[in-house]
Every structure is written in C-alpha cells, then in structure tokens.
C-alpha cells in the first residue's frame, strides 16, 4: 500500500513510523509522551531529502499522522474507554477491505434489482368436511401486543430514531459525487453534513484514501485555508500547462511548512484544546 514509511528517532522510540503507530495502538508506548511535532519535522526532513512530489508517501504519512493525532487527542481528553477503542484499527480495516467489499456489494445490489422474488400462495384451502379443532390459548392481550408491535415498528422506521453511524463509504461517495459534479471541491464542503469530530476524522481519511489510490490531488494555499480537492487527471493537466505558476506541488500541504515552531509542551496544549473547540 504505497511507499515504505521512513524511520524516526525520538526520545521514546527509534524505528519505522508504522511500527510506532502499532506500538501505540497496542499501548506499549504512551502516546502522551510522543511529540507529534518532532515526528512531523523528521518526516518532512526525510521527504524533502528525496523530493517532495511523492504523493503516495505523503498520503501514507498523513494517514499514520491522523491516527496518531486522533489517539493523542483522546488520550489527552481522558475519554472513558469505550468499545470504540478499536476505532482506528476498524477504520484501517475499512479502508483495506473497502474496495473488495464494494465490488461484491455491487453484485448483491444489482442482484436485488434483477432477480424476481418468489411468492407464497394467497388462496385459502377450503375443506368443507373438516371439523376445526380448538385453537390453543389466545387472549385479547395477544392482539394488543401484536398491534402495539406494528405501531412501534413504524417509529423505528423514522430516521430520527436512527443512530448516526459514520461510514467512510459515505464520504468516499460524497467526494466522488462532488468531484463529478463540479470537477473540484474542498474539505469544508466535504464535511458540511458532519455532526461530530469523529465524522470529520472519517472524512479526512476518505480524502487520504482518494490520494492513496491516486484518484485525487489536494492543495492548501495557506495555514488553515481550505484544502482544495481535484481529480488526479485534472490536477496533472493543470500542473503541466501551468508549470510557471507559483502553486506548490500537488500533494503537499504547505500548512505543515508554515507550522509555528513551538516546543513540545505548547504543542500538547494545542492538541488538547483543538478538539474541544472543534467539537
């Protein structure tokens, strides 16, 4: 899945980035001790050393970085441990299994459209000479129960009752639709329907997935500016015809270069507060 991630040298760990993520997920390392700024700096140094237009490498890094950020923000916020603990791993699974599962689901969906249903008989079977034996134990309460069930089910059908689940597929499809519609979009537009921080993280991972698959390119012109998303082919065309312009190379987020040089402590505070403000 893309280029191998570089190694980092940190106070608490030395080695490849994906190993770092795994150790933290397995709670063998304390995420609160980890400096995300240091990780980012070392990665950028590595990336600049080998040329900055390696899109898949950047996407792979962003994916790991986003998960580290997510884990760290949760650690700092002292969220109660939930089954959601595995969220990062599940998202990863989703991304990996998604293409395969999607193909198969297309088969099933088409199959619902094409195949006919079977029907049972609707005619009663009269046997006049038949003496009906008694039914067993019914009470009027049975009718009340059955009717209450019918009326309750209706309420279950109401969308307001549905718990909102965040599905990465939703955002993959949304980005696809937005790109197909106007040929471009931005991260702010993508997250318009988002209702929680988790949903924004999922949307971000969806953007990364597009990047990883080489189906889109992203640009961010300034710190905190909207992340523009373009289809990969359009971005390539724009780049070759527009090479004289000062636009940064596709796939690089200059916001990272422009990040203020803070020490670890400040960075930690920033991470702790940001989710509260955003959520």
């Amino acid at each position, binding site marked *: 899945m893309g280029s191998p991630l570089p190694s980092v040298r940190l106070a608490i760990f030395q080695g490849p980035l994906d190993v770092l993520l795994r150790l933290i997920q397995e709670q063998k390392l304390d995420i609160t001790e980890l400096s995300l700024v240091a990780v980012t700096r070392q990665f950028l140094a590595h990336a600049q050393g080998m040329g900055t237009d390696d899109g898949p490498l950047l996407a792979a890094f962003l994916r790991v970085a986003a998960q580290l950020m997510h884990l760290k923000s949760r650690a700092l916020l002292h969220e109660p441990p939930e089954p959601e603990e595995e969220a990062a791993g599940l998202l990863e699974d989703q991304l990996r299994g998604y293409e395969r599962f999607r193909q198969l689901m297309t088969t099933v969906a088409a199959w619902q459209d094409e195949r006919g249903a079977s029907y049972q*008989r609707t005619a009663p079977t009269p046997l006049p000479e038949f003496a009906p034996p008694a039914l067993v134990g019914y009470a009027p309460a049975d009718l009340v129960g059955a009717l209450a069930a019918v009326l309750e089910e209706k309420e279950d059908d109401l969308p307001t009752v549905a718990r909102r689940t965040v599905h990465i597929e939703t955002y993959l499809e949304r980005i696809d639709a937005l790109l197909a519609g106007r040929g471009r979009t931005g991260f702010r537009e993508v997250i318009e329907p988002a209702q929680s921080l988790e949903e924004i993280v999922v949307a971000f991972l969806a953007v990364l997935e597009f990047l990883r698959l080489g189906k889109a390119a992203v640009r961010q012109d300034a710190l905190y500016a909207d992340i523009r998303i373009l289809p990969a082919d359009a971005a390539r065309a724009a780049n070759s015809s527009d090479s004289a312009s000062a636009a940064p190379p596709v796939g690089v987020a200059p916001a990272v270069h422009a990040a203020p040089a803070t020490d670890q402590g400040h960075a930690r505070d920033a991470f702790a507060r940001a989710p509260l403000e955003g959520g």
Partner: protein
Amino acid sequence: MPLPLTAVLEGLLFVAERPLTVREMAQITGRPARDVAAALAELKAASRERGILLQEQDGAFLLVSHPDAAPYVRALLGVHRREKLSRPALETLAVVAYYQPATRAEIERVRGVNSDHTLAVLLNRELIAAGERRPTPGRPIEYRTTFEFLKHFGLGSLEDLPERERFLAALTGAEAERDESA
C-alpha cells in the same frame, strides 16, 4: 432463458387467490388467448401425475391439491389449526379486528408489508372471512373477523376489544402517515 408459458401460467395459478380465466391470463402474460389455452391443456395433462391438479370451473382455471392426497392434506391442516399463529398472522388479525371492515390494501398500508399469505392463513383458520366488495375503484374485498374469532379470544363482542378507541385512533393516524411518506 425465459420461462416457458406453461411455467409462467403455473406460477400465476399457484399464487392466485381465485380461479383465473384464459382472458385474464392472456392479458397478464401479453400472449394470444390461443397460446394460453394450448399451454393450459399441456399443464393439465402434465398435472395428472402430480400433487397439484389443474381444474377448470365455469371457464376459469385453478390449481388444487390432488384428491388422492386429501387425507394427508386434512391431517396437515389439522396440525396447522392447533398451532399458535405466527407473528405476522397475529399482527394481521389484530389490524382486521380493530379496523374492520378492512381491505387488503388497508392492512398492508398499516403493516407496511405484503400480507397476502397471512390473510390466506387466517381465512383457512376461519378467524376472518371475506365479505362484500367495497364500491370503490378496484372493488376490493372487505375482511371481517368471524364468530370463531370471538370464541377463540374469549370475547363477547367486538366492543370488548381492549383499548378500542385508542388503537383505532392510532391506526388511522398510522395510515395517514404512511400515505404521506408514500
């Protein structure tokens, strides 16, 4: 490979709730009446050795279980009658009981699912009966509960149905909502 006409007709007659005329079947299948009649003759000949016979009554056709299987069929229906009603059947019965007279479309609108088969089950058990046709488009059949129904549920009359007013209000409300969302 499309289904042969004999098979299509067999499928139609299998689910039909009443005998079908050649004309009706020609209309539904979009085939000439002559072809339909020929296919029915073929089906009739083939069904002689099967458990399902094709019968002709006053120019209409219906499938029935073979008369030689009648003792077994009777035994099975006896088994069925001693069984508890399935959840869908009980639901359907409750809707008919509180709403009556109720048409199939009304029942399905409240339940939100196809109820053809469960209506047949309730008719089989004589818990409901088909009544008049309603003088509205399509002239749908109206269903009512029977005396058997009152007996089995230990009710003196329909007025003894518990919480009648409340459920009637809820049912008509449910129907209105379904109409809106449809």
